[in-house]
């Protein structure tokens, strides 16, 4: 006859006990080459196939309303991006997912105004290696999972006080002039626009100043 215990069989912890070593994400990440341009025409002028320039631009433009920083007022937006450089932002579903590679992006479902403002798109980053002019015939290969760039084609912005620098939606400076540049993919990973209101819970905790909100 086996004795029945009134206590847990085991009680182990895996997360609360500090791990012996931590591997920092992003360490030793290799930079990759991308190209940045003000427009598809400029892209084509850099010996890139015009069709690919247009496609990369279209993907970036589709991503733009989803990732551009959002502001509650036009004035706040223009403070960061300059007079006349902001537009109204469309409503987006909260659970929009931003594909790691902008290519799978679908068009925003609604163009209805959200009441928010966002900077205009001032350029784009072509993450997929464009086929250079003159080699087009030889290098006519479709991107595969293996050689596909880890960087999404994405919109770029320019701040009010620094009109020469291309910045991502999350304010990472990527280049000061058009053409090729090299960046770490994790630094330019698109994220949904930060337009959430925050701080709506927790006021009572501050007011009641107790050691615990449990009991």
């Amino acid at each position: 006859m086996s004795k029945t215990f009134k206590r847990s069989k085991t009680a182990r912890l895996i997360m609360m006990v500090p791990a012996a070593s931590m591997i920092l994400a992003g360490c030793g990440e290799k930079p990759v080459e991308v190209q940045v341009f003000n427009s598809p025409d400029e892209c084509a002028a850099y010996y890139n196939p015009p069709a690919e320039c247009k496609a990369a631009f279209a993907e970036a433009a589709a991503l733009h309303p989803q990732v551009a920083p959002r502001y509650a007022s036009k004035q706040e937006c223009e403070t960061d991006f300059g007079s006349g450089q902001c537009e109204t932002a469309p409503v987006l579903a909260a659970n929009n997912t931003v594909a790691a590679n902008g290519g799978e992006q679908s068009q925003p479902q609604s163009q209805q105004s959200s009441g928010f403002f966002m900077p205009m798109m001032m350029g784009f980053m072509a993450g997929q290696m464009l086929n250079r002019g003159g080699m087009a015939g030889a290098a006519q290969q479709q991107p595969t999972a293996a050689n596909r760039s880890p960087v999404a084609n994405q919109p770029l912005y320019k701040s009010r006080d620094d009109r020469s620098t291309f910045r991502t939606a999350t304010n990472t400076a990527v280049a000061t002039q058009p053409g090729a540049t090299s960046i770490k993919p994790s630094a330019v990973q698109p994220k949904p626009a930060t337009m959430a209101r925050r701080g709506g819970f927790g006021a009572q905790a501050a007011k009641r100043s107790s050691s615990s909100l449990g009991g």
Partner: protein
Amino acid sequence: MKRVNSNPRPGWKAFAESVGFNFHTFDGEPYWDETAYYQFSLQQIEQDLEAPTEELHQMALDLVDDIVSDEQKLQQLAIPPQFWDAVVASWRAKEPHLYGRMDFSYNGSAPAKLLELNYDTPTSLYETGFFQWVWLEDQLMRGELPQGADQFNSLQDKLQQAFGELNLPQPFYFASVTESIEDKGTVDYLMDIALQAGLNCRYIQLEQLGDIDGQLVDLDGFSIQGLFKLYPWEFMLQEEFAGTILTSQTQFIEPLWKCLLSNKGILPLLWQKYQGHPNLLPAFFDDGSALQNGWLRKPLLSREGANIQLLTADGLALQQDGPYNDSGYIRQQLAPLPKFGDNYTLIGSWVVGDSAAGICIREDNSLITKDSSRFIPHIILD
């Protein structure tokens, strides 16, 4: 049931800190105290605590059915009317619940008397489920406890099982108030168990929860579809994002209907329905008249013993000030906590899902148990 002095494990504080128990001392005073333990017989545990816990739990759930179809009761519990529909819907949809704790006055012989239900944000979970368990194993190994000593503490086993069976949306988020290291400890413990049950878990500070078009979102703007919040429903229902609760596609643990049971108003309602039950104390909604000897008054919504006013049988008045003076009150007959030496002893009895899952013991020098009251481990030995 008796209190036994015991030798603490050498170096237990350093060990405690190495396993995330950073709140073992409270304002310079011991919170975790292993200079003694309580000893129960198996019969005391099973007949006087475990069985009544499960019975009272079922009685409370049956009572929820009455409350959701009775506006007067919702009013008595001070549930804001704009949330009535949501509370009722949450109950009717059978939104699953995870855990709760009821507090008893019990001296080892007379029936345990239910003092209150902590059914929304109960804490001292980690101390009970993990640290108390490790204490027993350590002390058995060191020969400090008699061989064969057991503990009424299946809390961690049952929580892990519950996380495995609840079918929660993933990633599943856990939130607590930034400033409270005690609450963070509780949430870390729950996340650890959920992780062991195979859940994809994420932590977010409660104040960082975002709202996009009525949907709760995380720091990256992704919608939160499952959330454990160590924050009382009655606060959430009156804060800026209260409206978000009605629109957000989020499964909450504890579910919204738990606000009915974490409310002290449940005590008079239990007494109305089950008057004379051996584990219940007479209780009524407060009419504002003078308190009589042998009675106490406490707010509908309060925690950690705050804002309790009591008169002993001899007419001695005791009062605990606190920040919960803005709701209605109930009055309850006093079941004085038993005294062991200089200590008044309260028993917390855990419920996971619908099963009794163990006990924790708190000691104080006063009849009112507070957040600073010491946590004392226990054993079962026949």
